[in-house]
């Protein structure tokens, strides 16, 4: 059993896991009292990133935690995989550019939906994407 304050980790290795990631992020976003629009944005970003982890990383995991800073609550989700990494990050962040047959909105679109976005990638080592959404 976990309390709402403890970080929670989920493996991402199937389409069902993408749904589980959405549900976990939504429950944390609700607990943090994010507005409905902000909840929806964060969950949508999490869905995009979880699918990236699955498709490009092969499999991976997400760590979701509740944050508190200067009286504001927030939710952080850290997606990591040990996949091939991203050779050209600038290109990967471009709207419409895709390597996986999708729409190319995963990374660039997710970044627009959250307050903080950080990506750490190295070819041959893997990729870690961190997103944070704060209450307004």
């Amino acid at each position, binding site marked *: 059993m976990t309390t709402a304050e403890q970080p929670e980790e989920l493996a991402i290795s199937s*389409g*069902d896991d*993408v*749904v589980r990631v*959405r*549900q976990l992020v*939504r429950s944390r976003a609700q607990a943090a009292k994010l507005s*409905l*629009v902000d*909840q*929806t*944005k964060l*969950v*949508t970003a999490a*869905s*995009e990133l979880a*699918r990236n982890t699955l498709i490009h990383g092969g499999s991976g995991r997400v760590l979701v935690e509740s944050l508190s800073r200067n009286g504001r609550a927030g939710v952080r989700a850290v997606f990591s995989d040990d996949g091939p990494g991203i050779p050209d990050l600038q290109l990967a962040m471009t*709207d419409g550019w895709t390597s996986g047959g*999708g*729409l190319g*909105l*995963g990374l*660039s*679109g*997710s970044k*627009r*939906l959250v307050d903080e976005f950080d990506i750490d990638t190295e070819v041959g080592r893997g990729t870690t994407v961190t997103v944070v959404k704060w209450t307004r």
Partner: protein
Amino acid sequence: MERVPVLSLGDALLVSIQVDLDDETVLALQEDLADRIVSSSARGVVIDISGVEIVDSFIGRMFGSIAALSRVLDAETVVVGMRPAVAITLVELGLSLHGVRTALNVERGLAIVRKLTTARDTRVAEDDDESIDDFGGEGGDVVAAPSRP
């Protein structure tokens, strides 16, 4: 994976999505709809997403595919009931749902399907509308009769 039920409603198929959509469910829905459009000769598909909490780029792309697929099979697709938060998020994500017709609710969605298919049928059957004119003329006489002096 869960399967989304497809209901027949006159000439249209109605799909009401009430589950958290995983990718396999979305792909299965696409295939089910293709089969049902052909087997039931449906003219339209109305997809109600009022129960859907998020639409990401994968799900959004599938709506586009379903719309394109149904068009090829001579049916129109209308996506209805999108939540305001979902609409705001989709636009910010950069997904415009190009080629997908939308309406506020099921009723308006069905009306659009009816209008589109009627307009198309009228074009196809342009030489065959004499009986409709006759019927309209008769009705007009009956209505006009009481106002004559």
